[in-house]
């Protein structure tokens, strides 16, 4: 292959950007799945009329069928109903943890970016300390102090994601402050406060929407990991991670108890990533 062929075959930057601006089939699928999860979270009864806590021992361990889409568990409860009714808990934890992490991260990042040299130094050292405690470790430490539960899980996942967001916000803020349009505003005599409000903050915070979308999926994964370990939501409440943990005992006889709740965690995380990356590409190509 000659060099010219290669140049023609590889998409140039401009083509890559144009291609990125279109929403692909993957993004539509991701959006559709997330819409289903959100609908399940706000109106679970609509999608799955069966009671997720109703025990029916005669129909325990039914494999997946047309009547029982995802099969039943050891007490004859419908797995489909439990997955649908569990969406609310999982989504709420994911969104609340991400909001907490993003909020705290943004506050720290903006403080470091605007507060001058000494504040920046201090915040950076604090972030270094937090980075030395990997996500789940920080969460487990918090659980030792506060005790297990859904609220602790949310707090822990939010706190452990904050330093990452703080670093991104700080870097973005420094880039925006050095950007030509900010310089132009300074030259034109725009006041400090107005410059901050009209130019610096909007351009710093715009990428956060994409980051948040990416973050919710991962937050759900880590929160359900804590539930799986028995430190978050506890059975019989239909939380996805807790359902998987309950299915562990029956793995060799009733695979559907573990596979379907996990599939929903994966699909939610993947959908969040696909949409978040779509947002990111679009903000970059503008």
């Amino acid at each position, binding site marked *: 292959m000659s060099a010219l062929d290669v140049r023609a075959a*590889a998409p140039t930057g401009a083509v890559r950007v144009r291609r990125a601006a279109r929403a692909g089939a993957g993004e539509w699928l991701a959006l559709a799945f997330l819409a289903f999860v959100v609908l399940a979270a706000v109106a679970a009864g609509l999608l799955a009329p069966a009671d997720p806590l109703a025990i029916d021992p005669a129909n325990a361990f039914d494999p997946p069928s047309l009547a029982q889409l995802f099969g039943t568990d050891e007490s004859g409860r419908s797995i489909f109903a439990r997955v649908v009714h569990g969406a609310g808990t999982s989504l709420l934890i994911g969104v609340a943890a991400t909001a907490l992490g993003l909020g705290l991260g943004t506050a720290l990042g903006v403080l470091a970016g605007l507060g001058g040299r000494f504040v920046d130094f201090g915040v950076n050292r604090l972030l270094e300390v937090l980075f030395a405690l*990997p996500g789940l*470790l920080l969460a*487990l430490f918090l659980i030792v102090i506060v005790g297990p539960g859904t609220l602790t899980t949310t707090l822990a996942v939010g706190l452990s994601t904050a330093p990452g967001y703080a670093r991104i916000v700080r870097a973005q803020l420094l880039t925006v402050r050095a950007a030509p349009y900010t310089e132009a505003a300074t030259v034109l005599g725009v006041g400090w406060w107005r410059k901050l409000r009209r130019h610096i903050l909007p351009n710093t915070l715009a990428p956060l929407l994409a980051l948040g979308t990416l973050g919710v999926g991962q937050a759900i*994964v880590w929160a359900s990991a804590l539930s799986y370990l028995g430190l978050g939501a506890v059975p019989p409440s239909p939380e996805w*991670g807790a359902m998987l943990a309950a299915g562990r005992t029956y*793995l060799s006889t009733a*695979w559907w108890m*573990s596979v379907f709740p996990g599939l929903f965690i994966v699909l939610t995380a993947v959908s969040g*990533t696909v949409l978040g990356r779509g947002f990111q590409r679009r903000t970059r190509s503008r």
Partner: protein
Amino acid sequence: MTPGSPRAEPPAAGRAGRLALRALARIGGGVLVLWAVATLTFFALRLIPGDPAQALLGGPGSQASEEALAAVRAEYGLDQPLLAQYLRQLGRLATGDFGSSYALRTEVAPLLLSQLGGTLLLAVLALAAGWVLALLLASWSTRGGRVGERIGSALEVVGAGLPHFWLATVLILVFSVGLGWLPPISTPGPLGLVLPVVTLAVPLAGFLGQVMRESLLDALEAPFALSARARGESEGGVRRRHALRHAALPGVALSGWAFGYLISGAVVVETIFARPGLGRTLLNAVTERDVPVVVGVVLLVALAYILVTVVTDIAARILDPRVPA
């Protein structure tokens, strides 16, 4: 930077010296971080409601006598002022004394050291496997045009979205319950390591692959790649000798993060595969509120994290001559 390009290289010895100085400075900063972590854990643990002496004697249900409580307080220095306790704790940690476990009644430091090897082996193997998978995926998916790119990107996103506990469950279902090829719990020996390593490596490869593919694409469009092609270098040669090095850089920079991710994952994976190690020890300690063990693991992991970041920082500077030493 392409090899043999006309650029005045600083004398090698001067660069090596600056790298050593930088490593020393980073290690000094690391000691400060460790001190901060120790301080943070000490004061955070004072927020636990309840009497630590009571916890030492088996929790609120134990109905320990007032004399026994007083004896424990004196033994652990709990009757002294907070500052004295803090300094005493720092002094102990500095000499490698992590105290003794509430639940197991053994010294924490030897306990953790005996568990460290298993977790390190798991993490290193998973890191290596994740790297190889990510590089293979990145170089394959940038070769096959648009379809390859789509497939590669989809595999990476799905891989990164797989929770360890679910991937492990599915792997056990397929390879242990279904096919019967591999043990569902981690037996000693290489066969028992396969499923835990794969469980940790696949999501990691998903994250690393996303970053590596982006930078590989950028490198293949960079001027130095064009000039290498113009010199008549084959496409494979351009990739091997020039582009892959670029693709590896962000991966190296992410190693500190990857280490933390693997330690978090080890808690889950060691529990599922009933494999002895630091993660499982930590989880047991958390459920039993065995504070000295939890603090010990936190400090040990922070120390390891600092070492990893110092090493990768220096490695990135050796790998990329553009970064000043």
